[in-house]
């Protein structure tokens, strides 16, 4: 499946009636610095979409445009059948969970969560019920009368979540909400967020620079690079069929093979790939480390040899990480990475195998 | 994030108010300095007569110079008192630092008038100091130069401005990272050398700020001379005051005020440049 086709497919996956938010050619410049260079994407109702990218990729800017804290320099944002970007933030059916939570220090947890309801004049009885329900959902009911300053980071984050969700927004924006937490707490919160989203059914637009996080949580990932949309697809799709070399390297680890294609065959330094599709000429292929097998391992496990491509290389380094191990293999001057289950240590010259279909042709 | 309307609402009122109630009055003062008084009326005839009078008339020049001398003395004395105090508090006071700091600021908040008056009761011929000296039989006659003299003015103004000078110097000293002092001593410099080469230069911004403040405010002070200055202790601001009072000549008074204003702005400008150069070193 070609990479262009993959992208179209993902867009089509958002059917017209399931479309919640649409950005059309959104451009944002600060002075003469163009941060967003014409982004068009669609968010499906009820999905967990992640905006993934390095710092400076424009992901937070896009989020802020959707929230309403910035105006697009050009382009439009639509929610349903209404234009969104012309509305001030307090009139959008969108709520945000901020990176550092932005809880109001002079209000209790209860009053923080009730804030959105109060300013819109919700009757006290209804507000009280909804606040209690929201606090219960994030398991912070017993802290209702506490001040935010007395809470830990993880607890503050839950309150921020409740404060946003209690307003029943159409879209919830999350600006790297887990980045301030330590690793263990982060993993725990990731799983809680995911199940919360499933339970509540609200559409989540999540921003992060952590690709593992994006893969774990999202229904779809939108990878941004230098203000442009690099690829948008489900995690499995984007992992198995990256459209560009950048995507292949950003998400997971990969080997980038620079080859010359001639009549359906690719010739690279030290190895070849056949058959391949696409035009003749220089081409780059992405080959994931776990797709490369070691002859010695196959022989030991008695697995049959279905891979067609093979090459030999010298093992330069082994990086052990418990369940698996990463080998750095020198193949005709090129350093390739191979992932294998950690077993008997290997060394020296070895033969490696892989299937041609695992080598994905990518754009540079 | 802030709408145009928001920005207009917050900037317009203060701008208009300051424009009307500060800029216009100061400009009016400037304007008056170019006018003259004839037959008890202010004539808008736009000339430099007042400035010429100031430069030519030895009385005015004399008072001006005396005022500068007094202001310089006050600044010097305040520094001599305030700097060591700040240094002591910052480096040597240990656990009592907070308390001592509060003790220093308290007099700042006590009325100028109260403090000036206190000195008046101490320095007079029938005052506390003379009473004390006589009680100890050190003198039999009251010592008169204490009150109604430039000395008294300098004394009172030093008393007023020492805490003012203390504050920025203390702030500067507190900002000096202690490891720098340690490093200096580690490299072989004793306390005096460390002070001269490390602490003093780094506290310069505070020192300059405090000194400028003391000088400028002393220059334009008219209350201390009225309280304790007498005839020999008059300062230029008293001259201005009388020109706006009995000796009705607003334009001339305005011209003197403009001179004080120019000296002030000039000094502030100069110290800002010095501070910038210091900071960039």
């Amino acid at each position, binding site marked *: 499946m070609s990479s262009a086709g993959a992208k179209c497919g993902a867009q089509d996956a958002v059917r017209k009636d399931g479309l919640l938010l649409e950005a059309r050619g959104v451009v944002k410049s600060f002075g003469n610095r163009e941060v967003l260079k014409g982004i068009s994407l669609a968010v499906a109702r009820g999905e967990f979409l992640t905006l993934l990218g390095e710092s400076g990729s424009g992901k937070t800017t896009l989020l802020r445009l959707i929230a309403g804290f910035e105006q697009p320099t050009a382009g439009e944002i639509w929610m349903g059948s209404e234009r969104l970007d012309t509305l001030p*933030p*307090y009139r959008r059916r969108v709520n*945000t969970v901020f990176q550092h939570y*932005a809880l109001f220090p002079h209000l209790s947890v209860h009053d923080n969560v009730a804030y959105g309801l109060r*300013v*819109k004049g919700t009757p006290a009885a209804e507000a009280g019920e909804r606040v209690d329900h929201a606090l219960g959902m994030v398991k912070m009911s017993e802290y209702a009368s506490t001040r935010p*300053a007395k809470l830990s*980071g993880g607890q503050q984050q839950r309150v921020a979540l409740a404060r*946003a969700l209690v307003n029943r927004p159409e879209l919830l924006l999350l600006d790297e909400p887990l980045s301030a937490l*330590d690793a263990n707490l982060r993993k725990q919160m990731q799983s809680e967020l995911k199940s919360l989203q499933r339970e509540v059914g609200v559409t989540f637009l999540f921003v992060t620079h952590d690709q593992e996080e994006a893969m774990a949580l999202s229904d779809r990932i939108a990878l941004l690079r230098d203000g442009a949309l690099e690829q948008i697809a489900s995690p499995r799709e984007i992992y198995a069929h990256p459209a560009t070399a950048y995507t292949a390297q950003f998400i997971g680890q990969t080997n980038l093979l620079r080859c010359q294609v001639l009549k359906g065959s690719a010739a690279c330094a030290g190895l070849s790939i056949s058959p391949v599709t696409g035009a003749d000429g220089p081409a780059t292929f992405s080959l994931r480390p776990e797709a490369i097998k070691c002859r010695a391992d196959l022989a030991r496990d008695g697995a049959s040899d279905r891979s067609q491509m093979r090459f030999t290389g010298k093992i330069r380094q082994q990086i052990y990480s418990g369940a698996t191990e990463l080998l750095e293999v020198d193949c005709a001057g090129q350093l390739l990475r191979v992932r294998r289950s950690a077993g008997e240590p290997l060394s020296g010259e070895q033969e490696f195998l892989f299937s041609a279909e695992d080598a994905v042709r990518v754009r540079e | 994030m*802030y709408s145009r309307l928001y*920005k207009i609402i*917050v900037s317009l*009122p*203060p*701008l208009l108010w*300051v424009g009307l109630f*500060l*800029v216009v*009055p100061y400009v*009016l*003062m400037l304007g*008056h300095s170019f006018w003259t008084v004839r037959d008890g009326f202010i004539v808008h005839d736009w000339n430099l007569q007042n400035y010429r009078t100031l430069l030519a008339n030895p009385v005015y020049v004399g008072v001006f110079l005396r005022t500068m001398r007094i202001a310089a003395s006050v600044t010097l004395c305040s520094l001599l008192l305030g700097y*060591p105090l700040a240094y*002591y508090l910052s480096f040597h006071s240990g656990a009592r630092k907070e308390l001592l700091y*509060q*003790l*220093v600021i*308290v007099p700042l908040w*006590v*009325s100028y*008038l*109260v403090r000036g*008056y206190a*000195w008046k*009761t*101490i320095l007079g011929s029938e*005052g*506390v100091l003379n*009473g*004390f000296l*006589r*009680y100890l039989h050190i003198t039999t006659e009251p010592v008169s130069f204490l009150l109604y003299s430039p000395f008294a003015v300098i004394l009172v103004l030093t008393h007023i401005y*020492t*805490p003012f000078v203390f504050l920025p110097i203390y702030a500067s000293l507190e900002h000096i990272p*202690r*490891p720098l*002092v*340690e490093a200096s*001593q580690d490299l072989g410099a004793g*306390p005096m050398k460390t002070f001269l080469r490390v602490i003093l230069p780094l506290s310069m911004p505070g020192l300059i700020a405090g000194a400028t403040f003391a000088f*400028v405010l002393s220059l*334009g002070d*008219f*209350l201390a001379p009225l*309280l304790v200055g007498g005839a020999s202790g008059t300062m230029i601001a008293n001259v201005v005051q009388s020109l*706006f009072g009995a000796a009705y000549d607003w334009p001339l008074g305005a011209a003197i005020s403009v001179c*004080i204003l120019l000296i*002030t702005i000039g000094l*502030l400008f100069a110290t800002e440049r010095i501070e910038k150069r210091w900071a960039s070193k």
Partner: protein
Amino acid sequence: MGLEMNARSATRNSPLLATYAGLVFAFIYLPIVLLVLYSFNRDGVGGFPPRHFTADWYRTLFADSAIWDAVWNSLQVAAGAVGLSLTLGLLAALALDRADFPGKALFRRVVLLPLILPGIITGLSLLMFAVFAGAQFSLLTVFLGHGTALISVATTELFAGLQKMDRAQEEASLDLGATPWQTFWRITLPNLKLSLVAAGLLIFTLSMDEIAVTFFLIGRDNTLPLEIWGRLRRGITPEINAVSTLIFAVSVVLIVIWYRIRARSIGAETQDLLKRP
């Protein structure tokens, strides 16, 4: 941390410096101490040593209606000045923090002028303006003078408070559906509470003690400093010591309160910084 602790002992204790510092303290406090002492002296403000302690002067003071009228006038002016300065100062601080307008740098300087220029210059300028505008000199002119001169005290303090505030809170408020007006009252202002109180206290004290500007803007009704000033010309009595002592006592209370408030806001800051994850 360990290395820094030693820095204190690195600068050895110097008894000479301590003595000098003590003398400076004595110089600063001596007049005030004597003032308080002599307010209880039956025989007047001079001479030594004070004998015949009495509280009579305080009794005279409390019966002196002119003084208390002046106190009331001063309080009115000070309260008004606090209101005016805080309001305009708050707007100015918001403008400096959030808006860009032509002459912004100039505005910042001009608004500071009354604090760094000798009071007589500001006082006379306002006098000329008042005459020019045909105004009657009264407590109103004094109030306007104080309020204007002290704007920058409020601006400086409130600007610092705004800078310390987490901008995201205002964004969160808008995000949750509050209009900018609601956000200002529910979020911005409460966050500035400490700054407002600290600035207010300072403005109040400065206004109560203000002489230079007041001198030229006063009408029939006296403020306290000018009332005392008038008495001084007529002749000094320990009654003035008594009122001065009271002023001193009130000042001490105010400054302790102000200091506590400052300490609390700095304490809250450090708590925030330590909170981070």
